[in-house]
């Protein structure tokens, strides 16, 4: 058995970026500094794992950003005001995700179009739930997200936990094997008597669950929500999966890599602000970083084949 090279590039990217940040801003090398740097990493990491599960079954979810926004709106209103109804709504949202997966498989629909359509649906629901920015985070969520455990900042602990749970479910459990099998060779999984409709629904439902957690933790950090709060998560989550060594087809993904990818992206944003880069170029720089990493990945792949 050879070591998994796939995880090497994301770890290296994160290390290089972290070194650069510390070099530019030595004060970041502290509890407080790390806390600030990775503050927003938790919801992004959760959304990235959600997106990874969708990509794992050869689809892509273009509604991730609006869905996380919708969840944030529900969390800041219903979950805060009337928890029972709030949690029921979130459970319903997870079921809706599973239903989308079943629909995509049963009718052989293009996931891009269906999730693009769903992005309208979630955006509409978010506006209905919370027409103007506001709301409040449930107390326990706020306490949890702003907790200050000794030695290691909350964000780092949470990221490690997300990676661990994701790894256990997707890579270690026998259920995760079936889901990855669906992405690797759908025909052979179906031939063995498993229902692809049920499996794809499970994958989407699981992704929905992680995305719900992303929206909730986001509200825990921001204490308020609005219907557009997480629109950029669609791109961030896709980029995080790719940065983390995942591939678009064939069920080759890594939850640990995805979380590292999400951390890298969060750090990249901090790095760009340390660079005092004009705000005009903030978005462009993110695109450039993504392209650079993809190019680096190509070089790695060539080296591995050689």
């Amino acid at each position, binding site marked *: 058995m050879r070591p998994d090279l796939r995880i090497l590039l994301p770890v290296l990217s994160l290390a290089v970026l972290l070194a650069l940040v510390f070099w530019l801003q030595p004060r970041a090398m502290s509890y407080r500094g790390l806390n600030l740097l990775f503050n927003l990493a938790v919801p992004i990491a959760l959304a990235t794992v959600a997106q990874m599960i969708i990509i794992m079954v050869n689809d892509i979810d273009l509604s991730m950003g609006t869905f996380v926004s919708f969840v944030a709106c529900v969390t800041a209103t219903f979950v805060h005001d009337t928890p029972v109804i709030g949690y029921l709504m979130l459970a319903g949202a997870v079921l809706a995700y599973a239903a989308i997966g079943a629909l995509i498989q049963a009718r*052989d*629909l293009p996931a*891009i179009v269906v999730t693009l359509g769903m992005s*309208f649906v979630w955006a509409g629901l978010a506006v209905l739930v919370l027409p103007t920015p506001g709301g409040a985070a449930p107390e326990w969520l706020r306490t949890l997200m702003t907790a200050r455990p000794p030695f290691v900042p909350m964000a780092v602990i949470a990221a490690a936990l997300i990676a661990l749970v994701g790894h256990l479910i997707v890579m270690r459990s026998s259920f995760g094997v079936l889901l990855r099998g669906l992405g690797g060779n759908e025909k052979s999984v179906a031939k063995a008597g498993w229902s692809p409709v049920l499996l794809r629904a499970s994958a989407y439902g699981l992704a929905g669950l992680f995305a719900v957690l992303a929206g909730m933790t986001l509200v825990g950090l921001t204490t308020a929500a609005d219907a557009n709060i997480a629109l950029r998560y669609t791109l961030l989550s896709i980029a995080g999966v790719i940065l983390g060594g995942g591939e678009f087809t064939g069920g080759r993904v890594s939850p640990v890599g995805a979380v590292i990818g999400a951390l890298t992206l969060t750090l990249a944003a901090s790095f760009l602000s340390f660079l005092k880069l004009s705000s005009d170029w903030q978005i462009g720089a993110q695109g450039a970083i993504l392209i650079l990493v993809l*190019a680096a990945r190509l070089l790695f792949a060539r080296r591995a084949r050689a």
Partner: protein
Amino acid sequence: MKTLLARPWIWAWVAAALAFALTAAISQNQGAWGLAVAALTFSAFSVIVGLGQMFVITLGPGNVDLSIPATMTLAGTVSLKVMDGGAGAEVTGLAIALAIGAGVGLTNYLLILLIRIPPIIATLAASFLYQSLAIWSNRGLRVKPPESLAEFAVGRSLGLPNLALLALVLSVLAWVALNRAAYGRQISAIGQNPRAARLSGLPVEAVRLATYMLCAVLAGLCGFLLSCFSGGAALNMGQEYLLASIAVVVIGGSSIGGGRSNVPGIWAGALFLFLIVSMLNSYGLGAGVRLLMTGLIIIAIVAVGSRGPRGT
């Protein structure tokens, strides 16, 4: 010959007509003709970008251009800035918008070819660069378009909106390219089976390059027209055309899996998208319900129009 009912775009036209009837029935202050003119004007933009997206989607699974909104914004802001509202620079402005489109298309294609990333990610990542370029180039200033162009964009000829007529001319050209020229055969073949297309001697890479450039040039033109029409370029002006460009292709009955596309469906899809929003509007529904319904209707159309379960 196929009957009319077997055409893939017929249902989109039926849906568009239905939405038109339902809206016209209750919009007293505007009247059916006013509604038709508004629908044709606004649909023209979706049609122009939709045609480009259609050619890209025809190339097969995974081919989609997500940089259309950023390209529109970049072309709109830069061309308006160069023209600076003055007369006499109209042709220069148009040329710049088209050149920006060509440059964007070339860049997109090179990323796809050289980094071997799926087009959806290549165009998405690159679109952030284009967006940044647009922000940097105009620094939030709103430049007015030259008077002549603004008048053209909102004007009518033969009773029809100029923009709709322009989009119609482009559609006819696109129809010829798709159905009568070798180019249409080539993209359809590549979309069905790229390997077999290459083994049949088709210049696969040249066709791909041409297609991504064509799509971006149309996006550039659309950005130019839209900023003339709305009295200036805005940084978010392309936003809604990301979904619209894909939706009009799919609603119009082209196969998202590639290889099979049609031009009449683009018009039906564009009219339908505009009319459904007007309809929900005129029934007094808020933004939330409008978004919700639009999304559900798109999914319903795709689900009903699909060729059914895998393997049949």
